[in-house]
């Protein structure tokens, strides 16, 4: 009951956020220089051509009128038509969304695994050289941005030791039996591990590039919280019961130490999704981020609006999910 109530409140505030965001994006992309009509017409087009085309897309109306028309459509599920692709924006965007979701979730999983292992190993072997090594590695991973890691990975595993594919989402010559755009997921469901391995070989490097900085953040924060938790009385009490270090870390310390990290992962995951824009470009990965860059270059106003709104919806959804996870992991919040 309480949960339902808090979810409803969150949805209401989300609606307000989305509206504000829509207004800002709508105005900004129309105020900045460069307009889609000029991009479409060949050189030497007359003033009359420009006016006719502007009228066709409704760009001759005031921004306020344009917004009303667009917002009216959105409320009925119509996000307009892409100027460059001449297809409904919703269709285009939803078509690309699965690729980006799979990439970001894979990156998140990699980040949690690497960061978690680094933190646990560092805690288990605290005070040794291994811990020092982990700290140094964390520092390096954190101070280099994801797109640079992308370039490093391309150089290492795409050029010097070509074990992964450096571009695209799947080898184009492959026959794909998929009905959804969730290639990775569907290949597992259909037990097509030949396709699965090809998809992973394409996805691994961009996902790893996105994951490295986040794994360093997770590793550092989790190790710090574990370190503090290891001094607490209930951990000491558990030792007196006859438990060894590994058990004490995993069962007594980790569940409590994971809470602050979880909040951070939620926030950082939204940054990671933002990071897909550049990484997808770098690896020519056919996702939402790559589409966003094309849309901006072509001044495809409806498409930009659609993508931004969708990103905002994802961010809010992630935050809501994190809050619910937090309540599930922390018994003190469950009844509060």
């Amino acid at each position, binding site marked *: 009951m309480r949960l339902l109530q808090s979810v409803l409140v969150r949805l209401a505030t989300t609606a307000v956020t989305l509206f504000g965001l829509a207004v800002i994006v709508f105005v900004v992309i129309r105020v900045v220089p460069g307009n889609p009509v000029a991009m479409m017409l060949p050189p030497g087009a007359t003033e009359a051509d420009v006016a006719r085309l502007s009228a066709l897309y409704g760009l001759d109306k005031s921004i306020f009128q344009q917004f009303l028309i667009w917002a009216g459509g959105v409320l009925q599920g119509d996000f307009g038509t892409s100027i460059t692709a001449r297809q409904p924006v919703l269709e285009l965007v939803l078509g690309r969304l699965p690729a980006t979701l799979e990439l970001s979730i894979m990156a998140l999983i990699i980040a949690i695994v690497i960061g978690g292992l680094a933190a646990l190993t560092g805690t288990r072997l605290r005070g040794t050289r291994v811990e020092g090594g982990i700290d140094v590695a964390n520092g390096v991973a954190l101070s280099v941005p994801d797109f640079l890691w992308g370039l490093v990975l391309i150089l290492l595993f795409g050029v010097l030791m070509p074990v992964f594919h450096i571009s695209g989402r799947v080898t184009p010559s492959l026959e794909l039996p998929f009905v959804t755009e969730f290639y990775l997921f569907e290949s597992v469901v259909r037990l097509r591990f030949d396709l699965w391995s090809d998809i992973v070989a394409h996805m691994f490097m961009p996902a790893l590039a996105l994951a490295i900085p986040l794994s360093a953040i997770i590793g550092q924060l989790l190790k710090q919280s574990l370190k503090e938790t290891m001094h607490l009385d209930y951990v000491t009490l558990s030792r007196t*019961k006859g438990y060894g270090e590994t058990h004490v870390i995993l069962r007594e310390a980790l569940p409590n130490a994971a809470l602050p990290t979880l909040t951070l992962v939620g926030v950082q995951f939204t940054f990671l999704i933002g990071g897909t824009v550049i990484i997808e470009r770098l690896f020519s990965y056919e996702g939402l981020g790559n589409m966003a860059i094309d849309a901006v270059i072509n001044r495809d106003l409806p498409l930009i609006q659609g993508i931004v709104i969708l990103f905002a919806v994802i961010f809010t959804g992630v935050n809501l999910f994190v809050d619910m996870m937090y309540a599930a992991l922390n018994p003190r919040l469950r009844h509060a």
Partner: protein
Amino acid sequence: MSYLEIDRLTVRLKGGGTLLRAVSLQVAAGEVRGLVGESGAGKSMIGKAVLGILPRAAEVVSGRIVLDGVDLLTLPPAERRRRVGASCALIPQDPLTALNPSRRIGPQITDRLVDILRWNRGRAEGRARELLAEVHIPDPDRVMRCYPHELSGGMRQRILIASAFAAEPKLIVADEPTTALDVTVQKQILKLIKEMQLRHGTALLFVSHDLGVVSKVCQSLTVLYAGMVLEDAGIGDFFRAPRHPYSAALLAATPKYTDPTAGLIPVPEAVLAAVRAEVAAADRRAGHV
């Protein structure tokens, strides 16, 4: 023969400070021994050394800790942990921080029985229910399903006491078990510890800075200063006539609750100076300074 025998145990900080100076003491089976001294005297350190939970910065440099005939310090770590876990237990100081906030009460009592002593879960849970009833907790089944934050400090200390007795240990270290509690609850908890100790015949190492409490619970006591044993006496002898001047001063400094107007009496400076000289002399003899 005593159940626990600590023989010239010296513990030092890795940085250099000495925490325990050749401490020797014995606890017979079923005996309740008080460890008293001011803050930093090393009384908690003795319990920690026995249980193997010394801070990482501290290390045993010499001495023996013989538990039931076996020197714990010669055992490999895993074997030592198992042995201590099966035969000793700790009643911690602060019940608010000694239970894991994200685990239910039941498993926190039964985990040692199931994981270390290999009981089956049903038997362990039955045992936990029995113990909770012994420490006068109404509705043990409900409490076992609770999280620590749902229970009061007094309740939590009762649970920790029950948990300490779970594996029928031969020795329990009670590390100032009432210091963090409300004065009104303190009395009940002390009574409960004594009651449980008598029922189970467990030896108790009772760490306290409160001589009044020690006089009620213990049969014998060890007075420490700066990690050195100053006096080792039966409780009756000690309160009639403490042998060491520092012990006498400590006894005189104990507030008398019967006379609220009386001021606090500090340990006289001359006595402290004499004790410090004694510690320094012992250090010189032992060759560490």
